[in-house]
Each structure stands twice: as structure tokens, then as C-alpha cells.
């Protein structure tokens, strides 16, 4: 209703970018207000950020069902975009709720923090809506640069600086690859528009040209860095561990979802003609990413680091779905991201709640005896771990089921068997967290007084993890509708290509 009124008041051509525009305006407002308020009122800034994001989510939700290219095709607005607008805005809003306690406790500069969070969100949204290569690049960079700074924002903590620097150096490196790939694709096809590139690659002569293949390979590497696929994952553990915990949550959920949104649209919707080329590469990436992520996670004692490797492993499962390509796979990946996002946000929310100011970073030993002192927190963490493990009837299970089904349908039996074996391995390290909380005794620890914001975030994450899993119908519908709207707009021939293998 509200968003409808706002939408009507604006020129029609603005409607497709309403959500990112709202976020961008909020970012400016935060900077203006923040410079007046000074540091002590960081909570007010947080709520301002939160309301901007909530409004953006509302605008995105109101845009469901409308299909229009905007700005001469640079942005594509369809249900796929709306899905990711909503997901990204909700994730960012949850991160704000996590930050309300955290920012003042660590004495982070709140104006910069929230403004950067919002600008990162704008980047993510652009990436999800990108209709040409330049917007992919712009979105990715707006997102990444903001997150580099956010990772390093705890200036007094050397590990935070290390995280920011590592993330920045490797991120910049990967951007080089991506840009080179973009240039090559442009050179080969003569266009930066995804639509036009897709059409040009219909000709088999062009599709086999070395220029296109090299460009594709470069772009795979670039995106591989952003989604933290092995062997391009080296930055992830240090960046996740060192960054302030809410920022880690943003990296694990928001950045990952947005990067996959762009990656998925590029490969599955616009480059299915090259599936023969990228399918094999993704197969290897998926197998490596799952296996390395899970195996290395086994050895982690720091929970944030463990969650970093777990995020790598989950990127691997998502890559399994992408390898399969096709309508079911696209929808499965979207659904998977939904379940993954809430379980991870919840886990990070628990970490924020138990983290001590003087000693950031939580080891398994720090979680000892949590079930006794904080039964609700421990139960919530156990729930998130079980969902990440993929146990029914939680969201993570249905996501895995969906992805496995799509990949099996496409004939990737061995890749799915490998994914199943990997899930067995993952059981061990997720269960370790539960053991630490429920079995091990720990020193009595005094937790910070928890503000209501964090409790709200936890409640939302718990409810979503259960509801999305127990009654998956509306969310499957949503994911399938979103993907179909992207694929349907792309080309009518896409469907035939999906079913061909």
C-alpha cells in the first residue's frame, strides 16, 4: 500500500529501481544525520538504516509481477530481481539488528558503518538486477569496496585490519580477472548487453571462438572469488574471522547471495549455449569447493572460522545446482539461498550475543555450557546447526533435497553422491558445536545485556528456518516463479537448451 502510493507518485521509469534508490537515499540520510549527531547516538542511526531497508524490501515486494527492462536494458526488473531485492534487503536489515549492540560495544564509527552497509546493499541489488556487463561490474565493485572497508572497520583490532587488507588485495585481484573477462566477451560479441551477447552466442562458430572461451574462463574466476569457490577461497577464512561479526554475517549471506544472483543469471539464463564449456568447469569447482570446505571445517576450533569454511562448503552445494543448469536447478538454488541465509544469520546472531568485548572471536570452548546458562540461545544455535547440516524438517534439508533433485534430474549422479558424502562429513563439525554447548562444561560467562533488536533477529531467523522447511510450498513457488520470470524473459529458446542434456 505505502509502496504503491510512493510508486504512483514517481515517474514510471523510476519504479524498477525504487528499492536500490530508497537504500541509496537512506545512505545519504545516514551520512547527513550522522555528521550532526555524533557517535553516542549510534542506535538511532541503526534504526534509520533499518527503516530504509524495510521500506526497500516493501518496494521490492510490491514490484513482484512487473517485468520491465530499465535504463535501456542496463537493469532488468523481473521477479528474479524482486526476489533478490527482498532477500538482500532482509539480510541487510538483519545485519543492522545484529549491529545495534555490536557497534557501540566495539566503539565502531557508526555513521561510516551504517552508510557503508547501505552502499554495499545498493551494490548487491544492482548486481542482482544487472542486465549488462558494466552493471555487473559496477554492482560488484560498489558492494565489494564497501565491504572491504567494513571488514577493516574495527581499527583497534589488528585482525580486523588484516581481514580488510587480505579481502581487498585478493578482491582487487579477482576484479581484474572479471574485468578482463568482460572486455574479452565484449570484444568477441560486440555488445555489453547480456541479451545481445546471448543472441550472438547462438552461432556455434562464435561460441567456440577462443576469445569467448577465455572471456568465460576469466569471468568464472572472477565470480569464483566472490562466491568463495575453491581454489579461489583463500581470502575467506581470514576475512571472516577477523571482520566484526555482523560484517562477517553480511559477507556470508548478503555478499554470497548477491554474487550468486549475478553468477546464476549470467550463466544459466544468458549463457546456456556455452553450458558444454562452463558445465565441466563448474563440476570441478563444485566438487573441490564442497570437499575442501567440509574437510577443512573439521579442524576448526574458532566458530567464525568454522562458519567460514561451512559457507565455502555451502557454496559448493549451490554450485552443484548451477552445474546442473535448467529450470529446476535455478529454482533450487534460489530456494537454497533462502534457507541458507536465515540459518547463517541466526548463527551469527548467536555469536554476537555470546561474544565478549575484550576478546572478540568465539572458540568452541567459549560455547561450553551455554545450554545451562542460556538455554534459549543454545537451542537456537542447535537449530541453525541442524538446518545447515540438512536435517528435516528444517529449511536446509528441503534446500538440499531440491538441489540434489535438480542435479540428479540433469544426470549428475556422481556429483550428487559426492555432495551427499560431503553432507555426512559436515555432520561432524556442526554436531561439535552442539556438543560444546550441551555436553561440555564451561566457565560461567557474563553476557552483555541483550537489546531487543538482537532478540528480534534471532526470533526471525528461528521462525524462518522452521517455517521454510516445514511448509516449503510458498517458498518453492516463489523461487520457481522468480527463476522462471528471469529465464522466460531472456529467450524463448532457453527452455529447449535446458532440457537438451
Amino acid at each position, binding site marked *: 500500500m505505502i509502496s504503491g502510493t510512493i510508486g504512483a507518485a514517481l515517474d514510471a521509469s523510476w519504479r524498477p529501481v525504487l528499492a536500490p534508490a530508497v537504500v541509496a537515499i537512506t545512505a545519504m540520510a545516514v551520512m547527513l544525520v550522522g555528521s550532526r549527531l555524533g557517535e553516542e547516538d549510534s542506535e538511532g542511526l541503526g534504526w534509520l538504516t533499518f527503516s530504509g531497508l524495510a521500506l526497500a524490501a516493501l518496494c521490492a515486494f510490491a514490484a513482484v509481477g512487473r517485468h520491465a527492462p530499465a535504463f535501456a536494458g542496463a537493469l532488468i526488473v523481473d521477479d528474479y530481481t524482486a526476489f533478490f531485492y527482498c532477500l538482500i534487503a532482509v539480510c541487510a536489515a538483519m545485519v543492522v539488528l545484529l549491529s545495534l549492540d555490536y557497534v557501540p560495544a566495539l566503539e565502531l564509527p557508526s555513521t561510516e558503518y551504517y552508510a557503508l552497509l547501505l552502499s554495499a546493499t545498493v551494490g548487491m541489488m544492482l548486481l542482482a538486477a544487472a542486465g549488462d556487463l558494466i552493471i555487473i561490474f559496477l554492482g560488484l565493485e560498489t558492494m565489494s569496496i564497501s565491504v572491504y572497508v567494513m571488514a577493516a572497520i574495527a581499527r583497534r583490532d589488528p585482525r580486523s585490519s588484516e581481514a580488510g587488507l587480505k579481502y581487498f588485495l585478493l578482491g582487487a585481484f579477482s576484479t581484474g580477472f572479471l574485468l578482463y573477462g568482460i572486455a574479452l566477451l565484449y570484444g568477441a560479441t560486440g555488445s555489453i548487453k547480456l541479451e545481445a551477447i546471448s543472441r550472438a552466442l547462438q552461432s556455434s562458430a562464435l561460441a567456440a571462438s577462443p576469445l569467448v572461451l577465455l572471456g568465460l574462463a576469466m569471468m568464472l574466476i572472477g565470480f569464483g572469488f566472490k562466491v568463495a569457490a575453491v581454489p579461489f577461497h583463500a581470502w575467506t577464512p581470514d576475512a571472516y574471522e577477523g571482520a566484526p561479526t555482523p560484517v562477517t554475517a553480511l559477507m556470508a549471506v548478503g555478499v554470497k547471495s548477491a554474487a550468486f544472483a549475478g553468477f546464476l543469471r549470467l550463466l544459466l539464463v544468458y549463457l546456456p549455449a556455452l553450458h558444454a564449456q562452463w558445465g565441466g568447469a563448474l563440476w570441478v569447482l563444485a566438487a573441490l569447493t564442497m570437499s575442501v570446505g567440509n574437510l577443512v571445517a573439521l579442524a576448526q576450533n574458532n566458530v567464525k572460522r568454522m562458519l567460514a569454511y561451512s559457507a565455502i562448503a555451502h557454496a559448493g552445494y549451490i554450485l552443484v545446482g548451477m552445474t546442473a543448469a535448467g529450470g529446476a536447478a535455478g529454482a533450487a538454488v534460489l530456494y537454497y539461498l533462502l534457507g541458507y541465509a536465515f540459518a547463517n544469520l541466526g548463527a551469527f546472531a548467536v555469536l554476537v550475543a555470546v561474544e565478549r568485548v575484550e576478546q572478540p572471536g568465539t572458540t568452541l570452548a567459549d560455547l561450553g555450557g551455554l545450554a545451562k546458562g542460556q538455554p534459549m540461545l543454545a537451542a537456537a544455535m542447535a537449530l541453525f546447526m541442524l538446518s545447515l547440516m540438512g*536435517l528435516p524438517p528444517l529449511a536446509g534439508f528441503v534446500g538440499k533435497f531440491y538441489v540434489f*533433485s535438480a542435479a*540428479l*534430474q540433469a544426470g549428475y549422479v556422481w556429483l550428487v*553422491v559426492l555432495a*551427499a558424502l560431503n553432507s555426512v562429513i559436515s555432520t561432524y563439525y556442526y*554436531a561439535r558445536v*552442539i556438543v560444546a554447548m550441551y555436553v561440555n562444561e564451561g566457565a560461567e560467562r557474563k553476557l552483555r545485556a541483550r537489546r531487543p533488536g538482537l532478540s528480534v533477529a534471532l526470533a526471525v531467523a528461528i521462525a524462518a528456518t522452521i517455517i521454510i522447511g516445514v511448509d516449503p510450498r510458498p517458498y518453492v513457488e516463489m*523461487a520457481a516463479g522468480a527463476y*522462471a520470470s528471469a529465464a522466460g524473459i531472456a529467450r524463448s529458446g532457453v527452455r529447449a537448451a535446458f532440457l537438451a542434456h
Partner: protein
Amino acid sequence: MTANLLTLIIFVPLVGALAVALFADERTVWPAAFIFSLLPLALSIYLLVAFNPHDNGYQFVERRPWIADFGVSYHVGVDGISLFLVPLAALLVSLTLLYASGGDIDRRPREFCFFVLMLETGLLGVLLAVDLFLFYVFWELTLIPIYFIIGIWGSQRRVYAAFKFILYTMLGSLLMLVALIYLVLHARGYLGAATFDLTDLYRVPLSHAQARWLFAALALGFAVKVPVWPLHSWLPDAYSEAPTAGSMLLGGAMFQMGVYGFLRFAIPLFPEVAREAAPLFMALGVVGIIYGALLALAQSDLKRLVAYASVSHVGFVVLGVFALDRFSVEGAVYQLITHGLSTTALFMAIGMIYLRRRTRAIGELGGLWRPAPMLGAILMVAMLSAVGLPGLDGFVGEFLVLLGAYFASWQAAALAVSGLILGVLYMLWAYERVMFGPLAKSADRGIADLAPREVAVIFPLIALMFFLGLYPRPLLRRIEPSVVAFLARAQAAPAPALSFDRAKPQEFAGLRVVP
């Protein structure tokens, strides 16, 4: 009431679990949980009465669509194979709660009751689900509570045991999940739509290689759970490290899940391959019988002894199922019930000894008969039931299994009998060392015999042992038609390859929205 009877049976414990977790306090938690566990028991006794013994199909069926995009339905039903396992599970859960409240579980009672009731929902769901997806959900749902029960309330090496248990089970179940999805996607080409409904999936034509892989994946999942030798190594650790209440649930109510999976899913879905694999599984069963018995002889801890005795006894069940003979399968189903009773009673009796003496080591016990004759009598009945003394329940099942196995392979039956002899040996030898002879400690003279509450807990089990041993007919009469139907499926000829184009592309989950 009959319209939703099975749903009520399955979900009342879950409601109870949530209610206990949210509302009960330390004082009210035990009675509340116990009452919630009595409801499904009462309903399942009504189920026994209302069951039509002449019908060999599913009864009390409820079927409604659930996740249409995946072809998943909420489909539950009960037949002669699952009929008695439902009240058995409900009874054992109630007795476990009653027993545990008497001092076995001395901390975090609320969480314990929550997990036990959640486990009950999973168990009953596994037994009653007719939809493969639903079955899998319940199957995994049993995993979490028992993992917590071992991990939180177990003894010294509980964490190790809990990890071993969960990793073994997950290995089996995730490959099973892959196989189930594959089967459904394959069947879609014949059925026109994806469906996880078991009744639609029988006799879907499969190539031999496909059937083999699928059977192997399912069989692995179920064999780990049974457990079939050599996949048993999690069992002694889990059984002996769990608290007594956990051992009772594991040994009494959960071991049926694996065998039930073979009877309900693995064999009827892939009958040809199952027939091919039958000699292998019979052999593994026999190895399990002898191996378990020999290791039971060597144990110095009472609980580990019962654990290895379980390995031995489930060997009989596996032998019976894969002999694919009417007598042997009936005997195997009967043993699912009787072995549940005797194992639960044994763990309970050992738990009672442990509460008095704080040890389970056979070497540190002795002469307990004199101060505690009732405890001695109960342990005796439980042991004799386990080794199959005529007149007690264990005999009926073992006799039928051996009879049927003899028709299938007299060598297997002959070797299996040695397990019976060894069984008498290890049980009675242990009994002699614990109950007779001089008192191990002079202080033992003062140990108390059974309290009225303990008698109340164990009496239903003892009574059932005698009843099922002396008058098995009411049960066998109801089990038989379903076993005949099972064998008809298991002996079925290969499904004919259909003539229409099986490669016809079918849309799946989410694809239907596409132009």
C-alpha cells in the same frame, strides 16, 4: 476419530514435547510427559482392536497432498507388519519415561522429556509413513533426539559414542536420500508425474544395474541401522554409553527401524536384486549371530554384553527376513516385537543393578540373589526370553525363523542354531556370576530389592513375555496376511518393460511454470 487416528498417534507426542518444553517446570515435567506418552499408547491399543485382520493392505489410510511440486504427499497407513510395532514403541516410550523419572535421569529432566517425546513422533512416523519423503523426514527426525540423549546423559565416553552413531547413520541415510530421489525421477517417466508415494512406486521398471545401485544404497542405510554385521561397530558404544533410558529406547524401540525398512521398502521395491542379495544377507546374518554371541561371551560389562547379544539376535531377524519364506518372515516380524521387549527388560534390570551398586562390571558383582530375589527373578525371565526358552516370547520368533531358514538353506539354519547354544551360555554364565556365589561386598547384604515403582515399570514387560510366548496366535493371525502380500511382491517376476517412450521429458519441481 478413526479418520485421523494415525495422525493423532504420530503427532500427539510432538505436541507433548513442545508443551513440556515450554510450560512444564521441574516438578510437573515427569507426570506431564508420562501422560502425553500414554495418549498414543491408548490410541494404538484402540488401533489393535479396530484393525481388520483379514485385510492385507494398508488400513486407517490418510492421504492428502503436501508438497505438490515435489510429488510429496502426506500418506500414512498401517498393515500387519507395522501393526504391533506401533503400540510396542508407544509402550516402551511410556515405560522409559516412567523408569527414567525414578533416578536414572537426574539432571535436565525437561530437555530429556522433550527429546524422548520427539523421538516417539519420529519412531511412530517411520512405522506409519507410506510416502518415501515423509518416511525419510521421520527417519531423520529420530536421529536428533537420540543423539542428544546419548551426548548429554550418557556415561564417560558419551561424546565419542554419539558422534559414531550420528556419522554412521548419516552416511547410510544420505545415500538413501539420493537413491530415493533417483528412483522417483526415474519413475516419473512411467507414471507421468513425480511421486514419492510408495504404493505407486512398486514395479516401476528398472534396468538391472539401476536396481542394483538403488538397492545397495537403501540396503546400506537400513543395514547400518539394524545393524547388519560388519556395520555394527557403532552399536556397542551407543548402547553401553547411553543412559539406561537411552539404551532401552535404542535397543527396544529403534532397532526395528532398519529391519522395517528392508521389509517395507528395500525388498518390495527391488525384488529381483533383493532375491539375488538374499544369500549374502543370510550369510551376514549368520555371521552376526555367531560373532555377536562370541563377543558377548567375552564381555566383562553387563551392558556391553547385552549390546553384543543384540548384534547376535538381530542376526536372526536378518536371516529370517532374507530367507524370504513365510515362516521365517513371520518369525522375523515376531522377533521385532519380542526382542524389543527382552532387550528393554534387560537394560532396565541392569540399570536397576547399577542404581544400587554403581557398577556394571560383572567381576565386581556377585551373590545379589540373596538380598534381592525379585530383581534376580526378573533378570532371569528377561534373559530366558532373550535366549528363546520355550514358553517365553523369544522362542516363537526364533523357532519360526529357524524353520523358514531351514527351507531356504539348511546350512544357514544349522549354523544359526549354534547361536542359540552360545546365547544360553553367555546369558546364564553372566547370571551365575552376578546373582549366585558369595556376595562380592559385604555391604551388598543391605541392598534393597525392587521398589513398588520398579515392579510397576517392569511388570508389563514380563507379563507380555509370557503372553506372547504362550499365546502367539492373535498376533500371528494379523501379521500373516501382510507377510503373504510382502512375499508376493518379493517373489514377483521382473516388471515388463513398457512400450511407451520412457524418455518422454517430464517437468519437475518448478519447471511447470515455464513456457
